[in-house]
Each structure stands twice: as C-alpha cells, then as structure tokens.
C-alpha cells in the first residue's frame, strides 16, 4: 500500500488533494497547476451562468483568490472541483443580482438580451442564439442545476456539495430545467401548441 505520491512527483500528475497539501506545505506553485486544471471549467460555467465573458472572468478570478485564501478549510473527502464550484456559484449569484439591479436602473430590458458572442462558434448560428436566450430565461437555480449536471457533468452528490441543495431537489430542478428548455427551444409538445 502506498502512502501517496512521491515527494518529487511532478505536480501535474498529482491529485487535487495532493496539490492542496503541497500548497499548504508552502509550495505555492502547486496552486498554479490547480488554476490551470480548473480555471477553464470555472470560466465556462460562469460564462454560461452570467452570459457575459467579462463578468465571468471577474467572478472566476474572485473565486480562485477566495479558494486560495480558504484552502486550509478544504476537506479532502470532497471533490476539489465541487468545493471550488460552490465558491464560484456564490460569486455568480452575487454578480447576477448586482447586474440585475444595475440593468434595471440603467436600461430596463437589457438583461433579456444575453451576450450571444460568448457562445462557441458552432455551425448552427441560429441554434447558438436560441440556446443563449433559452439558458438566460431559466431561473438561476434551474440554470445552475442544468449546467452542473449536463455541461460540467457533476454527479448529484458533487452538485449537492457545490450548491448546498439536496440530491432530490437537484434532480427535480434538472428535470424542470430540461422541460423548460425544450419549450424555449421549440422542441417540446408545449411549444407546438
């Protein structure tokens, strides 16, 4: 039985938990590996959540800084990604509320027009726009649940860690989000009526 990775093991082959231990032991460069490993997913989730690349970069940056400061509180029994997403979702919620207030005051109705340019360049540009609008119309809890499950592919247990919501409630949210998206995309029975 091994006691873990060798002390001189390359950082990029270590588990998240081993990297966290290295950071806590004074090896701050190990956190660079964690950033490179998880920043893309964080950016993608934040972008899909907020529909704005600039806001997504802001909240992801805040998330990574907060995670670094709070690294001593990380419990190795949890997936690091789920723990990180929990911080990110809190920042997203705060950013969404702040932006909603700002848009409501400055230019009512702008929040209904998502920044479709943040979506990837896929062949079906029309579908891309439709998806962006549909996602933007989902209420935040349903948007979170859908993206975590079907885009980031977290398990329901990891989702529970990330959101603080029970597994049954999350399953219900995912189901309703899917139904709502079908309608919004014109793919469900309701949309045909």
């Amino acid at each position: 039985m091994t006691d873990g990775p060798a002390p001189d093991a390359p950082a990029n082959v270590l588990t998240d938990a081993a990297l966290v231990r290295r950071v806590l032991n004074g090896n701050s460069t190990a956190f660079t590996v964690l950033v490179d490993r998880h920043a893309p997913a964080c950016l993608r989730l934040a972008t899909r959540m907020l529909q704005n690349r600039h806001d997504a970069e802001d909240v992801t940056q805040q998330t990574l800084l907060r995670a670094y400061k709070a690294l001593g509180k990380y419990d190795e029994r949890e997936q690091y990604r789920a723990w990180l997403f929990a911080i990110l979702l809190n920042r997203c919620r705060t950013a969404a509320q702040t932006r909603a207030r700002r848009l409501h005051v400055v230019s009512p109705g702008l929040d209904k027009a998502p920044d479709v340019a943040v979506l990837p360049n896929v062949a079906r540009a029309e579908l891309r726009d439709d998806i962006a609008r549909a996602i933007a119309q989902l209420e935040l809890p349903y948007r979170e649940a859908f993206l975590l499950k079907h885009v980031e592919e977290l398990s329901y247990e990891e989702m529970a860690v990330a959101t603080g919501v029970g597994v049954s409630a999350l399953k219900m949210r995912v189901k309703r989000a899917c139904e709502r998206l079908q309608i919004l995309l014109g793919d469900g029975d309701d949309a045909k009526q």
Partner: protein
Amino acid sequence: MRSNNEPDSDAEFAATPLLSDALHALKEPVAVRAEWRDSVLREIADLPRPQTERNGFALWRPISIRPLYAIAACLAAMVVGAVAATTVLRPSVLPAVANGNNGDANHGVESNAPVQLQTASAGHKTIRFALVAPGASHVSIVGDFNGWDPKATPMSFARDGNTWLVDMPLSVGRHLYAFVVDGDIVADPSAARVVDDDFGVQNSVVLVGAP
C-alpha cells in the same frame, strides 16, 4: 435508491435531440486568455500563504472503527486496568485503614476509612485508625488532635503483622491527620477527603459524628 417520485433527469434528457445539440454547443470550452491567467496568478502570488486550520473543529474528524476492533480494544483496556489495579493498589504496596471489625478471618483488618468504635466521653468518640505498612519499622499518627507531634501517638502492630493500629478519642467535629511512616508523612489512602496544608503536604480528614 431512487424513489418513484424522483425524476430520472438523464432519461428525460436523452429523449430530446435538440437539447443534445444544444449541449454540444454549451460544452465547448471557453478559452482562457493568457493575460487574464497571468493577472490571476500575480494576485495569488501577492497573498499570504494559506494556513491549515488548527482549531479543534477543523482537526476533528469522525473516524470509523470496526466493531470487532472496538470490542477488542475495550477488553484490552479492561485487562490492563485490572493488572494495574492489582499491582499498584495491592495492600502490601499502599497503606490502608482498618475498619475495626475484629474477629474475622482477616484479623479485622481491611482497607477502609477510620472507624468510630465507641463514645469515649461526652462530646468525644474513639476512632480506630489503621494503616497497612508491613515493611515499616515505626509508624505514628499526627494531627490537629496531638499538635502534629510524630512522637505523641505511636501506632502498634496488629496481630496480622501488616497493620498498624491506634485508637484515638477525638472530639466531635472535623480533624486533619496523617500517618508518619519511618519519618515520612503519608496521607491516609482511605480518607474521605484530602486537602493541601500550607506546606504542600496532603492531609487526610476524618469527621467525627455527634452521638
């Protein structure tokens, strides 16, 4: 286990091809800009190194113990405790007090607190003190009743050859005392209470009840 009312979101989702197409788009990675990454890492480098939580809550971790291991550990602890008790507390090692119940097979000597024998006079009772100290050559009792004089009240051997005895008429009330075994002051191991005197020596307490 999934309940009947719990939705199977994966099955629901698999049935919607348009959503599947949408997912392919949503799963496309978002490029990480190099400037953004560098600025994040610079900010992190300026932060103090994170510390491992050292408070009690953080260090506390529930541990799982297999039941058989737990039972074995309890039994082992009981055996160790029993061995320690018989080794450390056996009468030949520690002094004990007789209960004055003469005439039994043990010559009336057992480990017990001082025993009131009879009323000596009005307001006084005779108390029997006993100490098991087989290796001692001279034992006496000192207390507030004899001015803490080691020579004032010598104790004598009982018939068992191990126990030192003395009967003391004491006034009703609370008295402090100790034994002097070959010059060393020894607190009564059977005393109800032990208090520190002004010199850091432990004394024993006997309460003499009213008639």
